[in-house]
């Protein structure tokens, strides 16, 4: 039962992650304010993906969790990605 004494994440890790997230937020605001045409969407989504990986890895403790939980999370995102691809294939080629 006392295996609850798992890894305690040091405060500075959280502070660094927050700073990185804020930096990425302002970077994504900056990059989307420039006229990049169709690349704007891609740029904004890439920034959002990097941010979400940071949140999942550090804030949601996936880095310190057992690997099978990471595998489950990865599977759900993969499933979601596949559904997006299939839906768009349908709309593009109907």
């Amino acid at each position, binding site marked *: 039962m006392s295996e609850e004494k798992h890894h305690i994440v040091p405060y500075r890790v959280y502070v660094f992650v927050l700073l990185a997230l804020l930096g990425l937020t302002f970077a994504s605001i900056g990059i989307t304010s420039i006229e990049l045409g169709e690349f704007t969407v891609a740029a904004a989504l890439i920034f959002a993906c990097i941010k979400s990986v940071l949140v999942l890895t550090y804030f949601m403790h996936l880095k310190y969790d057992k690997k099978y939980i990471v595998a489950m999370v990865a599977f759900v995102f993969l499933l979601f990605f596949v559904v997006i691809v299939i839906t768009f294939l349908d*709309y593009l080629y109907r």
Partner: protein
Amino acid sequence: MEQNAHAEHIHYDAEASKIGMWLFIFTELLLFGGLFIVYSIYRFMNQEAFHLAGEELNTTIGAINTVLLLISSMTIAMSTSTLQYKKKGATLGLLAVTVIIGVVFLVNKYFEWGTKFSHGIWPGSEHMLSELSQGEILFFGLYFVMTGLHALHIIIGLIIILFAVFRIQKGTVNENRAALLENAGLYWHLVDLIWIFLFPLFYLIH
């Protein structure tokens, strides 16, 4: 004495409750994921209208809310560490900050929606149906549904955090039984995660 002996037999399994929380989070991800797909398909089919309607949204208030949610995510993540370090006061303080930021987020959202309402934009409003194009109606419909559903999650998250605060104060959630706080944290990060995608899709991409 007997009560104590009884209390020790209360079933507690941190790993199982964590898996349970993750399974629930998966259903939430797919719920919002479905809405994101609807959004991207309609955007693909109505690019001009989505572009036009997106201009209507206030990037500044969206950015402020993004920063707020990110900070609150850090404070609740930190509170899981302070609980492990047996710093009860700091844990409660960090959770209080998280709750306050969550409320401020909702207040911002109230004013943001209020501005839309005063411009005559709400689902099914006369202005929307008579003046706006099909694509713009879709944009604002999705905007209200998705940010509204997200705000509902903020409210639920706040209730869960307050419940955790209560249990920490009582001492039934402590460094040896931290699962409730950890799961409240996971839920709050999920809310943050969804906002990380809502913000660029609605406020940044014009």
